[in-house]
């Protein structure tokens, strides 16, 4: 299937919806950063700003009953799979109205109604879960697919290879999405990665492709191709989405000069921003005017403000809930 042909099939409606979702993620994350800076949020969080096109491009290719697993940098995946920002903010704040009743926090949001099996604070830890979900999908035969989001740092953990081997052996409908944002925490991935990234899945005979993770249309095109292939029984696939984390490893990682240059950050922000790239394309194709995009942004801003107010007003769980939910 021609990637270019697929890409051109991204019509106005889908492109605008992807623009809206990426905007929602960007604004959500800006507010999450503010919650940290103003000491309203307990603990830390890992921002997805800069990587929005990966989650939105991939999740736009999924059905609601498809499953995803997510990472410590998971707010983008969660929103892209359909979660409500209000209940997400509530979880970030440890409130009872949060997706996990405040017990999970930023690094563990799960939204099972939308097929999100949860964010995971072990970088390769969810690879087994996604592969197991794909096992269930194959057994059920309803055409469901599982997507495993992880960062390139997770390629250092053995579990990923154990389950890719089984996914390939048993032709499981799982798509491994490696978000290569260049940094394993504070270390450039090239200092920690021998050989070629794509050679790793290919060693198992897994279809593996590289995509510009800042171009949401390109991500969507590759993801839909590989997701539909998996749905049809074609087995697992692997996508390396080249992207960039605008902020630090977490919100407290503000002095980054020792591991990456300011110029590099500015270059990605100014030249490779996923929202700007899609906005420019929409205007050039005359699918949207600048005013349309501004209106979308204003609507998203309103949604985020209402969500935040809801979460700030929400109650903390009663301490008596601490012993609930240990066992089902």
């Amino acid at each position, binding site marked *: 299937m021609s990637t270019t042909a697929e890409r051109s099939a991204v019509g106005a409606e889908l492109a605008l919806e992807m623009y809206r979702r990426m905007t929602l993620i960007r604004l959500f994350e800006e507010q999450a950063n503010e919650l940290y800076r103003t000491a309203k949020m307990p603990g830390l969080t890992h921002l997805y700003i800069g990587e929005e096109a990966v989650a939105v491009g991939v999740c736009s290719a999924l059905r609601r009953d498809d499953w995803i697993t997510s990472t410590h940098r998971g707010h983008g995946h969660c929103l892209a799979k359909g979660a409500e920002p209000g209940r997400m903010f509530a979880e970030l704040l440890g409130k009872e109205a949060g997706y996990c009743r405040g017990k999970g926090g930023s690094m563990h949001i*799960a939204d099972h109604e939308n097929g999100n099996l*949860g964010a995971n604070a072990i970088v390769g*830890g969810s690879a*087994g879960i996604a592969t*197991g*979900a794909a096992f269930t999908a194959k057994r059920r035969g309803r055409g469901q697919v599982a997507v495993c989001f992880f960062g390139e740092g997770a390629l250092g953990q053995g579990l990923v290879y*154990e389950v890719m081997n089984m996914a390939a052996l048993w032709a499981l409908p799982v798509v491994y999405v490696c978000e290569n944002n260049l940094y394993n925490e504070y270390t450039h991935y090239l200092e920690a990665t021998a050989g070629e990234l794509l050679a790793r899945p290919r060693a198992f005979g897994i279809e593996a492709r590289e995509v510009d993770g800042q171009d949401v249309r390109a991500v969507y095109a590759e993801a839909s191709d590989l997701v539909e292939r998996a749905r049809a029984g074609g087995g697992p696939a692997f996508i390396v989405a080249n992207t960039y984390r605008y902020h630090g490893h977490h919100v407290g990682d503000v002095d980054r000069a020792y591991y990456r240059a300011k110029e590099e950050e500015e270059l990605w922000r100014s030249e490779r921003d996923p929202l700007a790239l899609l906005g420019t394309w929409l205007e050039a194709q005359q699918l949207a005017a600048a005013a349309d995009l501004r209106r979308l942004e204003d609507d998203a801003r309103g949604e985020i403000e209402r969500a935040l107010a809801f979460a700030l007003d929400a109650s903390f769980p009663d301490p008596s809930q601490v012993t609930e939910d240990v*066992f089902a």
Partner: protein
Amino acid sequence: MSSPSALVSAGTRTLSFAQAINEALAEELRRDPTVFVLGEDVAEAGTPFKVLSGLVEEFGPERIIDSPISEAGITGLGVGAAMTGMRPVVDIMFGDFLTLVMDQLANQAAKTHYMSGGKLKVPLTLRTTMGATRRSAAQHSQSLHAWVAHVPGLKVVLPSTPADAKGLLKAAIRDDNPVVFIEDKMDYAVKGEVSDGELDIPLGVADVKRVGDDVTIVATSSMVRAALEAAEQLAADGISAEVVDPRSLVPLDVGALVRSAQKTGRAIVVDEGHRAYGASAELAAVIAEGAFWSLEVPVRRLAALDVPIPFSPPLEDVTVPTPELVAQAARELCGK
């Protein structure tokens, strides 16, 4: 050896521990299409212990699945399958390999229900083994049940008889939580009476394997046999020992242990895990906390020595408690 739990109304058959495990799996595989078995050499080989022989012939390779030698991977796959509606039974050949699956057990399976605020469930059963004296040396002989019992969110079951093995495994598979089910390798050939009918043995209910008045011996897994043999020896000396098998470490039937210790006034805990920070320490502590004012003497612990399990038979044989050691401890407690 009188055993209240052996009193059954329906007909009974004599089964080995291994046959009982096999029957439990077969019955649950027949009953529930979401149950499947995943592990190394579980299909045609029926595991190195031949516990699963015949299952692949009845249920096929789609449900009795030979896996790569990837303990973490199959456990992780099991967690994901369980979260999405299946009831996997993951087979980890040797308990020593729990070391390889700990992230998937402790960080994923155990915490998913809690971290999701009760929304996600992990009805996973992980079967594995324990037990020394098989001349298998330090990496195939450990009893690591305390490692998993320490993690909130995991249930931990240690059956000691064929009937308990069958009933508890069926309960584990039907449970909506991750259950680590640990079988002593030395028990597989042990025979016992098993009821023909549906066994109803809930997790978390201790069983008095022998009733007595002078001393309580709380024993787990194959140490129950050691305790029962010790009780026979003690009877000859005029000491009446009560043998209590908790059957599961999590949930733990604290009440049953405390009641027995309150009745006899003396308690010994026998467990095949290492002594330091082990299951025997926890069992002794709950008895000391709950029955302190009834105890004539401090609670005694018998456990594996705090050494890696050695290969050489004369060395290995002194690492784990024996009936003689249990009886000797009981005599000391009873002042005889």
